């Protein structure tokens, strides 16, 4: 049966099992929107700005593990999507973005709403395609989904000219795909795994440093088993939170610039680092010369280019994290390798001393709401079982520090690119994927205004997200850096003329609650989270000049942090 390109696309998405398509119509994609109208398998979610479409698809992908799918028009539709594509790229999130393009004969003509989408997105996608022939469409889509969701995942853009969506071709869902130029490694090298286990057996002060790869490859269960078998402390990166449960006694908190004292000190003093699905990002390592100076390093990662990029490692293992961790565990069990228990005991004694400092303690007296207290309360009220999306800045770090994630895929944040405006649209994707779940968007008055228009989308699709806005009237993280490093010259970090967020929420048909006093925080949150069918905007006025501690200043080693 002959189908138009637009119909091939909608049939393909349905056959691929795509539930939601996040998008915004325009001239170049009108045929596709018409085909969407004539089917009921793929649900289209109409956002209010294309950036939000990509973040919503991203939130969907992070919380489910399935690729998020986006449809935007040519020109500004595509350029507006770029921020979200780059966000997904930096955090290795599987995503397929379909961009409309002007008709083939007009490409290169400076036609209305024409941009070189393939060229613009090239540096921030895992791969991209321009489909010039309708006969190639189904196979190209298959390749796009395959590339996006295998190996180290990432966004893939498929640019489809308007005439290709009108032309007809036979459609068969391509079940299998093989690409001679793309064969991601799955299994780790047996010899390297043996070497790694040997190092584990010799270690006196071993340490796990685990990142987003654990979450992406669903390796959490295997990691917990391996960590328990080894008995070493575990630290998570921001991207890895929930990959190892925060309530586990072996967990020492997040590491890096705003990591805990115990995590950063353990990193600085360990003699073996087992890095799993983490990429030694500059916010994690601080001064690279001073990073884990005494440690031999085992690095497990699916991407060979992540290995020895920033830090030279002793035992690189390229492979799927879940596979490799399981293989390491098997190797330990089969060979009966024993860890050095007396040395570990000493190591834990030391770690407990660092822990005793209680670096995340904060003052609760006074009449100002401490942001840390607000997040502690959020944890309490949601029983630690919410999906928490966040924007970028101080609130993001506090959420990472104080919301103690026990499960993977619960902490949804833009770790690599640091995209303000991510939180609310990401929460939409999460809520659509998990309609019954509690979804909180932790944000600030700065970030939320970067995609505030999505309150309208939330109303249209009845998304009962709870927005927890820590409103301190400052672009807090900018202000904090200006306080520390620019002699308190608060250049453009103060926000004047803020809207009345309660009225704003109400004008979109939602519920708004403002909280001024510490004693009202818990009750307001209880009320908000009880409203299961409403979006509630909690505008929490927090201490304007609170800082995120601990903090490792730029250029310092992890053991040189400012504690308070």
């Amino acid at each position, binding site marked *: 049966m002959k189908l138009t390109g637009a119909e091939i696309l909608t049939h393909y998405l349905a056959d691929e099992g795509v539930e939601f398509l996040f998008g915004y119509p325009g001239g170049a994609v009108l045929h596709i929107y018409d085909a969407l109208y004539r089917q009921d398998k793929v649900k289209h979610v109409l956002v209010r700005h294309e950036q939000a479409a990509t973040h919503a698809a991203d939130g969907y992908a992070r919380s489910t593990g399935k690729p998020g799918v986006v449809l935007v028009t040519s020109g500004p539709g595509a350029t507006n999507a770029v921020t979200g594509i780059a966000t997904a790229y930096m955090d290795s999130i599987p995503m397929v973005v379909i961009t409309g393009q002007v008709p083939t004969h007009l490409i290169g003509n400076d036609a209305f709403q024409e941009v070189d989408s*393939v*060229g613009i997105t*090239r*540096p921030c996608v*895992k*791969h991209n395609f*321009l489909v010039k022939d309708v006969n190639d469409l189904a196979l190209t889509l298959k390749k796009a989904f395959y*590339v996006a969701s295998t190996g180290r995942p990432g966004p893939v853009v498929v640019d489809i000219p308007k005439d290709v969506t009108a032309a007809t071709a036979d459609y068969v869902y391509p079940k299998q795909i093989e*690409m*001679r*130029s*793309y064969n991601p490694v799955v299994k780790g090298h047996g010899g390297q795994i043996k070497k790694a286990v040997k190092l584990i057996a010799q270690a006196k002060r071993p340490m796990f440093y685990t990142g987003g790869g654990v979450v992406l490859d669903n390796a959490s269960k295997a990691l917990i088993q391996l960590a328990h078998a080894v008995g070493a402390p575990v630290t998570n990166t921001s991207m890895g939170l929930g990959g190892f449960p925060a309530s586990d006694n072996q967990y020492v908190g997040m590491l890096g610039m705003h990591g805990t004292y115990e995590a950063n000190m353990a990193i600085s003093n360990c003699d073996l680092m087992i890095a799993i699905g983490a990429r030694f990002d500059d916010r994690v390592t601080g001064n690279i010369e001073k990073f884990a100076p005494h440690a031999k390093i085992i690095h497990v990662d699916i*991407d*060979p*280019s992540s290995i*020895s*990029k920033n830090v030279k490692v002793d035992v690189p293992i390229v492979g799927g994290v879940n596979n490799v961790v399981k293989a390491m565990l098997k190797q330990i069990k089969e060979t009966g390798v024993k860890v050095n228990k007396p040395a570990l005991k000493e190591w834990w004694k030391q770690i407990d001393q660092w822990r005793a400092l209680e670096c995340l303690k904060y003052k609760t007296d006074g009449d100002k709401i401490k942001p840390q207290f607000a997040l502690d309360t959020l944890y309490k009220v949601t029983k630690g079982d919410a999906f928490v999306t966040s924007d970028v800045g101080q609130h993001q770090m506090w959420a990472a520090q104080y919301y103690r994630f026990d499960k993977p895929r619960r902490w949804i944040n833009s770790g690599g690119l640091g995209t303000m405006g991510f939180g609310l649209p990401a929460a939409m994707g999460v809520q659509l994927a998990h309609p019954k779940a509690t979804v909180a968007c932790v944000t600030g008055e700065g970030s939320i205004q970067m995609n505030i228009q999505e309150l309208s989308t939330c109303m249209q699709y009845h998304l009962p997200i709870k927005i927890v806005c820590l409103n301190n009237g400052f672009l807090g993280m900018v202000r904090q850096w200006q306080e520390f490093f620019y002699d308190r010259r608060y250049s453009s970090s103060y926000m004047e003329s803020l809207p009345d967020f309660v009225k704003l929420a109400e004008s979109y048909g939602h519920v708004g609650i403002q909280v001024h006093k510490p004693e009202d925080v818990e009750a307001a949150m209880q009320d908000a989270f009880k409203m299961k069918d409403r979006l509630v905007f909690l505008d929490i006025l927090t201490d304007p000049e609170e800082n995120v501690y601990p903090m490792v200043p730029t250029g310092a080693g992890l053991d040189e942090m400012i504690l308070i």
Partner: protein
Amino acid sequence: MRHIISILMENEAGALSRVAGLFSARGYNIESLTVAPTEDNTLSRMTLVTRGSDDIVEQITKQLNKLIDVVKLVDLTEGPHIEREMMMIKVKASTIESRTEVMRLAEIFRGRIIDVTPSSFTIELTGKGDKLDAFIDALDKAPILETVRSGVSGISRGAKSLHV
């Protein structure tokens, strides 16, 4: 250190710009780059000359391998190999004296004269880059009108080969 990286890649639109884009985005050097389809016209063969420390070249090869269009690559400088570059050079030669001199030099360097006018010669010369450089130096008496060099192409010595 100078490295010659030989890349077998899908002969797709945009494949070249993916490589060029990677080098500019990550701040790597490209000294020269040549590309053309192979005997299998679905594949292109690219030869890329770059400079960098061992760490950087390791990253370069890993990043290149990560490009979806790249099928295989080899760092030719890791083993015995042959490299060649072709140059076409147009020189002014209007007097008998200069014409004789240019012809003599071309012969010494095993170049071929491929175009002649009453006032100019165009010479084709193939070899390693330093040979081409030496020819240019030797020509100093004959004014050079135009030089075009192909960039380096390379292949490994022996029976092993870079193929799918």
